[in-house]
């Protein structure tokens, strides 16, 4: 028996599992391009008979979805940029430098790892209220800069870089900042790529924090916006699915562009939900 025919049943099982897994996504895009009369047809049609962009027109005309997308890009983008800078700096210090309090600081960070985000949700809400940052972009961004996953990721990676290189640079007269900027940062690019993708994905998809912190619908990120569409267009599935499709596309594009980093990221950083 050839290896192809021996493996055929395995491929069939795996492809079926893939179809089931991907079906909601297919259904989402299919509904978004289906005319309204087909959306509530009995029985539903799994293969499209007629395609239309009417739902998209309606969505862009009647909802602030573009604004929400821009908000999300800004919020997730700013959080990601700061994480890349701050986490690589801290990761470098924890991996390669010695200073009083280092172990205590790192222990404190480790000790909060298993704390579910819901424990800090209410106190963070209070802190932002005290600072007058409720319903502001900084109010959504600042707490996002505090998660510690990136510090670990960067520390683990920078630890594997040769220390001799840093000594050599110092002997050549490089300042401490130059050692970080010219040696650590360029050599950390693979880890930085993983960190960027994980962080961006995480805050692109974030829901409960912005839901609690923001009041003004014009400031919503797209996930919170989608949840309000769900309330508003409860039975207008064409509209809802189109909104969801528009929110899904950027992340799917990012996945196809950076597949390797996604898979690598799971191996290095584990399953992050």
């Amino acid at each position, binding site marked *: 028996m050839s290896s192809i025919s021996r493996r055929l049943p395995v491929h069939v099982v795996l492809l079926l599992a893939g179809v089931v897994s991907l079906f909601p996504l297919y259904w989402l895009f299919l509904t978004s391009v289906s005319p309204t009369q087909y959306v509530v047809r009995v029985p539903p049609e799994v293969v499209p008979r007629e395609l239309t962009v009417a739902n998209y027109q309606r969505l862009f005309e009647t909802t602030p979805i573009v604004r929400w997308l821009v908000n999300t890009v800004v919020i997730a983008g700013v959080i990601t940029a700061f994480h890349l800078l701050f986490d690589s700096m801290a990761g470098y210090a924890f991996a390669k430098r010695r200073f009083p309090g280092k172990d205590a600081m790192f222990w404190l960070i480790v000790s909060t790892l*298993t704390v579910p985000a819901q424990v800090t*949700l*209410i106190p963070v809400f209070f802190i932002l209220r005290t600072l007058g940052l409720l319903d502001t972009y900084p109010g959504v961004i600042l707490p996002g800069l*505090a998660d510690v996953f990136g510090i670990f990721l960067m520390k683990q990676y920078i630890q594997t870089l040769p220390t001799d290189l840093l000594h050599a640079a110092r002997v050549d007269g490089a300042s401490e900042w130059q050692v970080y900027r010219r040696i650590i940062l360029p050599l950390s690019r693979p880890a930085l790529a993983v960190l960027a993708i994980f962080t961006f994905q995480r805050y692109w998809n974030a829901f409960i924090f912005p839901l609690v912190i923001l009041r003004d619908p014009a400031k919503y990120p797209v996930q919170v916006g989608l949840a309000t569409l769900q309330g508003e267009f409860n039975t207008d599935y064409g509209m809802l699915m189109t909104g969801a499709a528009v929110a899904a596309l950027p992340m*799917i594009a990012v996945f196809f562009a950076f597949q390797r980093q996604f898979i690598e990221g*799971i191996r290095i950083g*584990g399953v992050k939900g």
Partner: protein
Amino acid sequence: MTAALRRYGWSYVFVLPTFALFVVFTLLPVVQGLALSLQNARVTGGEFIGIANFVTLAEDPVFRQALGNTILYTTVVVAAQVTLALVVASLIQPLGARSRVFYRALFYLPLVNSAILVAIVWRWIFNANPFGLANTALGTIGLGPFLWIGSSDQALIAVILSAVLTIPGGGVVLYSAAIGSLPRELYEAAEVEGAGPFAKWWHITVPLLKPTTLYLLVVYTILAFQVFERVYIMTNGGGPNNATITIVQLIYSTAFQFGRYGLASAMAVVLFVMAIAVAVVQFRALRSDVEY
């Protein structure tokens, strides 16, 4: 002083931005969250009331329902996720490198989307109307129609099914990497003794994957404990008669709809303790592990 500053100053420059943010937005909130759970905190502040919030929770039927739903959801979903990840990764492994890359991507793709987006689609699939897809599919084999999210008996089943019917791509990737690094010699020895493919898998692969299995059990359990978006979207935040209410859903409504911050913080502490318990069990199990 200046000597110390010159020697260590840069280290603090590198650490400080992250550490300051961590202290303000993680460390202090954890401490304050624990403190709030012992206070009668409402919108206008509160006072220390000892463990009264926890007593209230123990007697509250809605919280018990939320706790029960969360544990049921977690048990079923985590068991399914770890099993599916193990089986799929095992099926992928013997295939060629290109097939492996293809399937890993295929199974990870659905997971890059947000819980909100996925829940919106599932809400429609589990619609009680005849054009609901789940009803159509089951109708072809003579079952239903079911009320699903419209029924207090079936709503939680719909929420659980929505989670189970997605292959856990992250777990597949981790298992796949772990299987790839298992020592070949053991398999060769087993083949000499005439073991078949299933026997090799069950007696060699599965036991050797125990560290990965334990890791995934813990991560998926802690994630499942925090289930919120599915419930919030699919069943309007709790379903008929609180049929699908979960701990995080209840924390959200108790704090941000009813302003009972102390009580909600006590619920968060219960969730915290549950997460710690799971992590401790993993630590114990790993410590008793035999090295290979």
